C-alpha cells in the first residue's frame, strides 16, 4: 500500500514537472514586465545616427503624439525577424518610430538599414549602451511605447510579433 502510494506521488510529481516544462517550451520569448507606475522618459542627449550632431530628448519627443522607441543592432538576429513588422508599423501615422542603435558598428548598422529598409523617423546612437540603461532596457531588441504625456506606458522585451503589433496599434489609436 505504501509502495503504491509513493509510486503514485512520483507519477504526480513527474507529470507536474512535464506540464511545467511543456508549457515553458511553448511560451513566447517576449517578456513584458508589468509597469505599475508609469515613468517619464529620462532627460538625455543622444548622437544622431546620420550625422555627428547631438539631440536633446526634449527635441526628439517634442510632438504631441505617441512615440515608439525600438532598440536594435545589426548583429542582433531577432532584430531581423521583427524588422518587416517595424516597416509595417512605420506606416501608421499616429505614432513616430524612433530607433536606438545599441552597441553597434556604425558601418554595419548603415548596411542593415540599406538592406532591410528604414522604418524609423529618427535613429539615435547608443554606442556604449548607457542610454539604454537610462531607459531601463535589458538589451536588444526592446520596444517602448511613450504616450503624449511623455510617459513610458508599455514595453516589450524581445522581438515583436504580429500579436504585439496589433496591441501597439490599439494603444496608439
Amino acid at each position, binding site marked *: 500500500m505504501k509502495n503504491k502510494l509513493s509510486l503514485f506521488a512520483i507519477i504526480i510529481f513527474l507529470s507536474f514537472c512535464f506540464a511545467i516544462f511543456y508549457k515553458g517550451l511553448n511560451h513566447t520569448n517576449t517578456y513584458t*514586465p508589468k509597469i505599475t507606475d508609469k*515613468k517619464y522618459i529620462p532627460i538625455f542627449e543622444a548622437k544622431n545616427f546620420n550625422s555627428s550632431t547631438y539631440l536633446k530628448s526634449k527635441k526628439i519627443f517634442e510632438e504631441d503624439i505617441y512615440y515608439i522607441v525600438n532598440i536594435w543592432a545589426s548583429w542582433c538576429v531577432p532584430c531581423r525577424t521583427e524588422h518587416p513588422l517595424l516597416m509595417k508599423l512605420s506606416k501608421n501615422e499616429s505614432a513616430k518610430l524612433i530607433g536606438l542603435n*545599441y*552597441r553597434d558598428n556604425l558601418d554595419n548598422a548603415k548596411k542593415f538599414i540599406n538592406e532591410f529598409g528604414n522604418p524609423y523617423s529618427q535613429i539615435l546612437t547608443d554606442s*556604449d*549602451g*548607457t542610454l*539604454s*540603461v*537610462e*531607459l*531601463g532596457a*535589458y*538589451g536588444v531588441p526592446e520596444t517602448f511605447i511613450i504616450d503624449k504625456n511623455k510617459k513610458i506606458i508599455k514595453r516589450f522585451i524581445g522581438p515583436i510579433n504580429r500579436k504585439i503589433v496589433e496591441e501597439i496599434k490599439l494603444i496608439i489609436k
Partner: protein
Amino acid sequence: MKILKIFIILFLSIGFSQLKSNEKNDELKNKILKNIRCLICQGQSVYDSESDFASSIKLIVDKKINDEMSEDQIYKFLRDKYGDWVIYEPELNKNTYVLWLLPLLLFVVGGAIIRKNLIFKNS
C-alpha cells in the same frame, strides 16, 4: 635646486593622492557591482558578467561615481530603472518585509520549541 625638490615633492604628493582616490573609487565600484544582479545572466552579478547589459551597467556605475553620487543614490537609480530585483540585498519595504522578517520569526519559533522540549526533558 631647492625649487626643484619642492616641485618633485608636490608632484609626487599630488600623484599619490590621485592614486589613492582612484583606488577608493575602484573599491566602491567593485562593491556596488558585486551587489547588482545581471538581469540577463543566470545567477551572475554584474561584476562577474561580461554581457552587454553588464558592460553598460559597469559604465553607468563608473559615471555615477565620478559624478560623486553615493552608493545608496546609485542603488536608488538602478532600482528606479529595473525594480528591487536588480539589487542582491533588497531594502526593507512593504513588498520585502516577509523576506526579512520570516527568518527571524522562524528563529524565534524554533528557539521557543527547543526551549520547551528542553524544559520538558529536564522535568
